[in-house]
Each structure stands twice: as structure tokens, then as C-alpha cells.
């Protein structure tokens, strides 16, 4: 192990872990309110495409981020209408949302394939901008710096506010929440709008900070990794930080090992992140029943 390898793996984990973290936080908020959103991948794509398109048109990556959050929230509100108000099956509606997102993002992105943008600028930690390993490890775009505070805020929102208590109650039992005077459906709408904004942000980080290009389907299944991460994180935003770093690191790790000339077949290297996913699900699987919101995936149709 050389220093470059360690620095590269850490920096890579932070970069690719950031979009995973935002997406996971969004999914946690929704699932705490009892809603599984399998359409996360589609929301990431809508965020990536609308963020990129807005940046290409306005030359402002920050407006791009805002547009991605708005588009993500709007798309998730459509999903909310379908599952909360129309009581559609969450799994079916989620998969439909994913395909909707794939199609819509391709439509939004098509005129902007090949567009040149100035992405989110890297802001070096003061004193570490002179180059070398320190710069590589301490110079990121603003969304990276905001990731930890966002995780902490999401934790506070879920576990330390009256709104969060209400949301968790809805996730455990909408009927009890309703009996206690809460409005389960309103809370679920709010949670999904917030989740959509975070997921849009995750997509924007990919297109505006990582790839600087738009390509159809560019999120490459990371929305599904984020859904698995929710289980890994036991529906806790702070655990999600560890999970996102671990999985972001797994992707970067194998590329870094190849660059370092590790004597392993590239075909095996490319399996590392997926092997890790399986391993984690096996190791953590049994904890699931204890922590998952009781009413997860079930629709609240009101109390007659």
C-alpha cells in the first residue's frame, strides 16, 4: 500500500460516497414514513439531467443544483400522489417511477449531450490548496462539505423534532398516528418532497461534480445501492454516512488497485462492489426485522 493509493481510495470514497449518501438519506426519510420508493434510481437520473441542463443553459452550477432539487421533489410528489392519495401498490408504483425517470431524464438530457459545462468548483480547505496529496484529500465541491451536516440535520429532523416523531409514528402505525391527531398522509407528502429534493441533489452531484457530462442512464444502478444502504444503515442517517463511504470506497478501491498495478484480474476487480453488497446484506440481514418501520410498504387508507 502506498500513500497515493490510500489517499486516492479515501478521496474516491468521499466523492462517490457523497451522491450515495444524499440518495440514502432521502430514502430513509421516506421509509421512516412507511413509504418504500424503488423509483429512487429514476429520481437520481431526473436530478442529474435537470441539473446538467440548467447548468448548461444558465452557466450556474448552483442554479443547476437548485433545479435538480426542485425536479426531484416534483417527481417524488407525483409518486406521493400515486401511493398516498391513490393507494397504489408501492413496489409497482416505485418501479413505474424508475422507468418514468429513465425516460424523462433522457428527454431532458438529449439536447445537452456533449454540452460543455463548468461544474461545481472545488473549494480547497484553506492552507491545503498548493497541490499534492493534501489538496487531493482536502479539496472538494460544496456538496461534499454539506453532506455530513445534511446527515446530521436529517438525524435531528427524524429523532429530535415533533415532526420527526410524527413521521416515525406514521411509519410504525398510521392508524395510531391518526388516532393521536396526526395527519399521516400530509406527513408522508412532506417526507417524500424532502426525500425527492435530496435524491435530486444526489443526481446533481454526479453530473455537476463527478462526470461533467450527461449520458442516458448515467447513474448506473446507484439508486438501488442506496436502497440497500438504507437497510445497512438501519434507517439511521448517521449510519448511512458509514455505509455511503464504505460503498463509495468499494467502487473506487478496485479502480485504484488496478491503477496501482495489483496482480488481480480486472474481471474480478469489477465484481468487488457487488460482492461487498452481498456480504453486507448477509451479515446484517438478521437485524432487519428489529429496526424496519412496522408499516413499511403498507398504504394507509384512512380510518372509516
Amino acid at each position, binding site marked *: 500500500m502506498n500513500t*497515493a*493509493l490510500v*489517499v*486516492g481510495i479515501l*478521496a*474516491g470514497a468521499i*466523492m*462517490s460516497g457523497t451522491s450515495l449518501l444524499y440518495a440514502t438519506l432521502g430514502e430513509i426519510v421516506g421509509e421512516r414514513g412507511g413509504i418504500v420508493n424503488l423509483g429512487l*434510481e429514476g429520481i437520481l*437520473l431526473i436530478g442529474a439531467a435537470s441539473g446538467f441542463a440548467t447548468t448548461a443553459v444558465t452557466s450556474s452550477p448552483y442554479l443547476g443544483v437548485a433545479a435538480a432539487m426542485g425536479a426531484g421533489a416534483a417527481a417524488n410528489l407525483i409518486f406521493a400522489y400515486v401511493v398516498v392519495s391513490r393507494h397504489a401498490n408501492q413496489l409497482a408504483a416505485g418501479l413505474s417511477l424508475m*422507468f418514468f425517470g*429513465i*425516460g424523462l*431524464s*433522457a428527454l431532458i438530457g*438529449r439536447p445537452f*449531450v*456533449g*454540452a*460543455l459545462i463548468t461544474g461545481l468548483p*472545488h473549494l480547497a480547505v484553506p492552507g491545503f490548496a498548493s497541490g499534492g496529496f493534501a489538496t*487531493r484529500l482536502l479539496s472538494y465541491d460544496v456538496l461534499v462539505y454539506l453532506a455530513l451536516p445534511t446527515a446530521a440535520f436529517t438525524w435531528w429532523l427524524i429523532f429530535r423534532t415533533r415532526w420527526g416523531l410524527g413521521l416515525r409514528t406514521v411509519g410504525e402505525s398510521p392508524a395510531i398516528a391518526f388516532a393521536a391527531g396526526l395527519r399521516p398522509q400530509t406527513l408522508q407528502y412532506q417526507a417524500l418532497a424532502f426525500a425527492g429534493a435530496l435524491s435530486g441533489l444526489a443526481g446533481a452531484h*454526479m453530473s455537476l461534480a*463527478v*462526470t*461533467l*457530462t450527461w*449520458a*442516458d*442512464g*448515467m*447513474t*448506473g444502478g*446507484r439508486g438501488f445501492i442506496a436502497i440497500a444502504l438504507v437497510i445497512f444503515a438501519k434507517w439511521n442517517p448517521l449510519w448511512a454516512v458509514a455505509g455511503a463511504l464504505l460503498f463509495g470506497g468499494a*467502487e*473506487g478501491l478496485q*479502480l*485504484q488497485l*488496478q*491503477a*496501482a*498495478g*495489483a*496482480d*488481480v*484480474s*480486472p*474481471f474480478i*476487480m*469489477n465484481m468487488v462492489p457487488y460482492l461487498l453488497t452481498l456480504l453486507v446484506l448477509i451479515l446484517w440481514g438478521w437485524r432487519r426485522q428489529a429496526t424496519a418501520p412496522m408499516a413499511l410498504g403498507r398504504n394507509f387508507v384512512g380510518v372509516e
Partner: protein
Amino acid sequence: MMHSRMAGVAGAMLLALFAVGPAAAQDKPPLTVGAIYVGSVNDYGYNRSMKDGLEEMKRAIPGLKLIEAENVPETAESERVMEGMIQQGAKLIFATSFGHQQFAFNLAKTHPDVYFEHAGGWMQAPNFGNFFGATQAAWYPMGVAAGKMTKSNTLGFVVGVPIGYALGNVNAFEMGALSVNPAAKTRVVVTGGWSDKAKEAAAANALIDQGADVVTMHVDSPATIIQAAESRNAYSIGFQSIEAKQLAPKYWITGLGFTWGPFMTDTAKSVMAGTFKPAMVRLGLGQGMMAVAPFGPAVPADVKTLVTAAADKVGHGFNPFTGPVTDNTGTVRIPAGETWGGDKMGNFDWYVEGVIGKAK
């Protein structure tokens, strides 16, 4: 990948619908040519190079009508898109992605009066030929450029899928670098897909972390990797389209691109004259199908001269894969007196001496 394929199907169907719209009325064109692309033509990569070639053909033959469809997947869907083009009068079809081969070939059998040219394949019929650039040897001058420009003596190469042709590109690149800089090493990272942008960015960064100060690639679109290199002040060398220079205003060295225009023009003319002959055409630098891209601002005159000379040498028949060639484990792979060319280019499952990486 599933996602892009779904989007591609939807996109291709939309385009086919629009393409059917305005027909007839005008004067009959001397020839209607159909072209299908697997991706978007604005990718600064492979599809862009095809689009540029077809536009050149269109300019060269006044009145020629060109019908195009982007994002055509490598499935039976492509057959339907091409069928639609034939219904609109296309007499010559360019199927520009490797996976379009079988579907174009099926149509060639049912439409003997329509001529097909497929990029990269091997199938032959009286009305079906194929063409591609002889890319491997053409990478040699790119290696010369990289070997001269590097200060760290470490070059980085991102490979999408480690097929024999791609490994051949890496090998010729390293051999070119060694010819001007005996200390030059090439590190290779395989992403596992032709178009996984996030991994491409991470791969470029990983190579730069390991000391590479020149990065190049064999993926569908070079855009992400070139921009990642530029953002970390590393030189880049492009591949596929020669237009990628603008992605890296400071650190662009040069690139290798396809120039399909002359071949496409000749083919269209042969169809119009009724003299079309199917052939397996493979042409490289100096033969009209490949070109060296313009140099970037950082490249000194002596390097330009060396690269141009190397490109000329390849154009006049120089083949880097002339034995003895040793792989990076010390085994002689091409014995003295033997030369690899043509079909053999797909057979690489090893890297030459000087490449740091494992081929399989």
C-alpha cells in the same frame, strides 16, 4: 446497460416516427442514404466521428438525402429502424455500431437491391460490406506524443472493455512511448463498460493518483476522462473523434480520430454508379480512415515533428507488432521474424513490456 437501452428504444422509436413525416414532393435525390448510430452524435466520440463522415459524404454529393437515427440499440429494434429507412427510399445503409451487424445482415438478405456497410464486422454478401479503421498501429504516434510530454514517465490508459483490439491499442501506445522514452510506463484501468461515466472519472483520477501525468482512453466518449484530467492539470490524448480538443483548453496533447468521409463518399458513388463491391475494408493513418487530431497549446514544435513523423511511418506501412515482442511478464509473444496485423489485432490477451496491468 438496461437503462440506456430502454431510453434508446424509446428515443429510436420517436426518431423513426419523426423521420416518416416529410416525404416526397421534392425532386428525387440521386441517392438516399440511411445511417443508424448507437448513441448520440454529440458525444465527442465514436458516434460524432460517424456523423462527421456522413456529413462530408453529403457535401461531396449534391442532392444526396441522408436519413439518420440516433440512440438505436443493438437489438432487433435496429432492424425495424433500418427497414423504415428502406421504405423511405434508402438504397445505402451505414450500420455504424458493432452490434448492428446481424440485423443489417438480415435486411441485406431480404432487400438485395439495398446496399449495406457495417462498421467493424466481418460478414460479407454481394450487397453487404464492412469497414473500420486500422486503429492499433495508429496508436503508436499517440504513444510517441505521450512519451515525450510526460515528466513522471507514467502514462494512464482507461479501457472500457478489455477486448483484444483495445489491448492492442494500449500495446501500440506503450511501444510508441518507449520508442522515444525508454523509462515510460503505461498504467491501465479497466472500467468494465464502454460508457460508465462515473467510473471513467474515478479511473482517470486513480491513474493520476498513481503518478500518471498523461491520460488517454478507449471508451465510447472521451469527454468525461478528458475533463477529469484537465481539472487535475494532467495532459490528455483523445480517441474516436478528432474534435475533443475543446474539452481540454490547456492540457490537450493530441488525439486519434476516425475520418470516414472519403470511404463513405466513395461507397455512395459506387452505389450510384452500380459498381458496389463488398469488401472487408481496414484502413489506417495515411490511408484515409484515421487522422491525428490538432495539437494542443502545450505541445512544443519538436514533439509535433516527432509525432507527425511517427504517423507518416505508420501510414507508410510500419507495424509496431513486428517480432520479437515480449509481454510484461517476460514471455516472447511475437517471435522474431513474425508480424501481427489485420485479424490478429483482436487476439491480444496480454500487455507488452512496460504496461503495468493484468490483461485477464
